[in-house]
């Protein structure tokens, strides 16, 4: 079973990949410049179920491409295993490649001097399709991706968005059970990228496929609104829903406006005394980061003496990019010095929300001696949000 409860179509188990340097006598011959072992993946485990889209996110060198390359059989793991539709990615590579629809980010993978139809016909034949049924299938797929009017166009005459759609059509043509999309919108403008992502979502849902998608575009990940796998240095830093990640990691900023500067000064003082950090005041307003587990009600309770002077209250969220950057800057081992993360490696690397909230709360809101009380913290969270 997958982590979402569906039938697991992709199973990655303790996948480890170390790129070893070639023997000395071969280095003059082999075109790699690896001189020390490179640990690309370090015990990565996850599953992807039917109808599920998993966004794989991570900085360069995080292990995304290596994971994908192992899944499609282009490289072998050093340890662990990966299977697709029950087929081992190494021993049963041909069956795996038959089950996968692959869409690389680089549209150079297309036959650019050939027409849209010829690109699909070539792929279809290699997938064992032929004749009129293949032509019919090509037509259907082109309609699905909105390229039916460009069927005879040469690859060079297509825009980046159209090329991306052609790559998607190629990935879908043979009715694969799995889609693996490696930065599919890399060269596409934001509007076309948004449309493409929506299309992918619809197709995956309609066909009950399982999809892995990597992207550097965070707005895309948000559009997907799916499960997210954060990779970092070959380990999973987070495996879960994006909104949950934001809930755990985001530190929204609360801004409260007052009728007078004096009221704002008094409110700022009150908040500082209550343990709120980084309280700043500008003109008639007070601004401070709202730590996780601290509700608006908590704040208002602290400021009950100044409530009548308040004019407005607004909460702003940090961009996802900032949230992730902070996450990646923290110590992956989850040590105290690593910032307010609570990120735990292993066990799919799921972040521990309770520890994060408990540590982040202002001291006098935690209860007696600041003792951790996950239940009460959870309760407070639910009431507010």
């Amino acid at each position, binding site marked *: 079973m997958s982590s979402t409860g569906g039938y697991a179509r992709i199973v990655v188990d303790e996948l480890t990949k170390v790129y070893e340097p070639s023997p000395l006598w071969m280095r003059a*011959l082999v075109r790699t410049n690896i001189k020390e072992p490179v640990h690309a993946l370090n015990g990565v485990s996850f599953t992807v179920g039917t109808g599920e889209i998993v966004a794989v996110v991570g900085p360069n060198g995080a292990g995304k491409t290596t994971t994908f390359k192992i899944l499609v059989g282009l*490289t072998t793991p050093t340890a662990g295993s990966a299977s697709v539709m029950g087929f081992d990615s190494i021993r049963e590579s041909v069956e795996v490649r038959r089950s996968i629809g692959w869409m690389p980010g680089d549209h150079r993978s297309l*036959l650019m001097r050939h027409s849209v139809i010829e690109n699909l016909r070539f792929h279809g034949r290699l*997938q*064992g*399709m032929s004749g009129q049924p293949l032509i019919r299938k090509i037509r259907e797929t082109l309609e699905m991706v909105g390229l039916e009017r460009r069927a005879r166009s040469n690859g060079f005459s297509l825009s980046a968005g159209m090329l991306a759609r052609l790559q998607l059509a190629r990935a879908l043509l043979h009715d694969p059970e799995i889609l693996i999309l490696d930065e599919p919108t890399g060269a596409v403008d934001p509007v076309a990228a948004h449309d493409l992502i929506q299309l992918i979502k619809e197709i995956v849902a309609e066909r009950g496929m399982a999809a892995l998608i990597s992207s550097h575009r965070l707005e895309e990940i948000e559009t997907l609104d799916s499960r997210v796998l954060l990779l970092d240095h070959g380990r999973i830093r987070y495996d879960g829903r994006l909104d949950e990640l934001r809930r755990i990691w985001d530190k929204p900023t609360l801004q409260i406006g007052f009728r007078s500067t004096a009221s704002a000064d008094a409110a700022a003082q009150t908040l500082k005394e209550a343990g709120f950090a980084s309280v700043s005041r500008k003109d008639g307003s007070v601004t401070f980061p709202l730590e996780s587990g601290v509700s608006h009600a908590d704040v208002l309770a602290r400021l009950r003496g100044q409530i009548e002077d308040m004019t407005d209250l607004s909460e702003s969220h940090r961009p996802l990019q900032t949230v992730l950057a902070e996450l990646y800057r923290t110590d992956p081992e989850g040590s105290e010095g690593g910032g307010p993360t609570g990120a735990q490696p292993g066990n799919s690397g799921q972040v521990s929300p309770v520890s994060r909230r408990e540590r982040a709360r202002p001291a006098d809101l935690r209860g007696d001696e600041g003792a951790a009380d996950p239940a009460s913290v959870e309760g407070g969270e639910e009431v507010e949000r």
Partner: protein
Amino acid sequence: MSTRKTQMSTRQAVVATATAFFRVDVIEEANYPISFAMRLLGVVAPLIPFFFISKLVGNSPEVGGDYLTFTVIGLAMTALLTAAMVGFGNTLQQSFQRGTMETFLIEPVPWTAIPLAMNQWQVMNGLIYTVLLMGAGWVLGAHYQLGGVGAAILIALLGITAGLAIGIVSAAVLLLTLKSTPVIRIYDIAASLLAGSLFSVAQLPGWAQALSVVLPHTYVINGVRTALMADPGSYEISLTRAVVSLGVFDVVVFAFGIWLWRRTLEYSRKIGLLGGY
């Protein structure tokens, strides 16, 4: 015929791979007819100087008394072998540069079939060059013994296989290094010299003649001369020797080439070279 991928047998997968690659290569060639025509012209044009040289050389017994026919066969067979030999390396390098190789390897076809499938059009080009050169030579006055055409075709086919075998070995190296065509080009030039495409091997020094014995080019060029010329000149290789030598070479080197290609692919897979061009 089906729309849905069914489990293809290995034979079906090889046939599907061969037809798919051949089709795209032919369509690409058809899209650039001027380029194709110029290439054909480039193959035939060098024959013109040899036509005039043959007038100067005359009827030397070293070349069987017919330098034009002697040279036409040498050039035609060299063109055929070169196409078979360097074709795959060139196509492979082109697919690295274009970025298509990764997609080919992700298709559910045997990886061993890919080098042969990618080289079909190149071999076809080689055959076209050969026929064109032989035809142009005939127009200029070359003489062929029609009774030897069957034997010549057999030797040429064995020669193509030999060229493919060398090409696959070279492509296996190319997979790791990304550059092996200079090496095969040098080999090609050396082979055409040592195998006596433009002059008789008998005119080479003893050590060069010894080297020429290990080259398939020697057996193809001189075997075809034996088949098609009334007098193949001072260096004659019997048809039996040519066929047997090439047959042994083909079996050994072709098997080695396929083995090396698979091993190199596996090694490239292990060290992460595949898909990272």
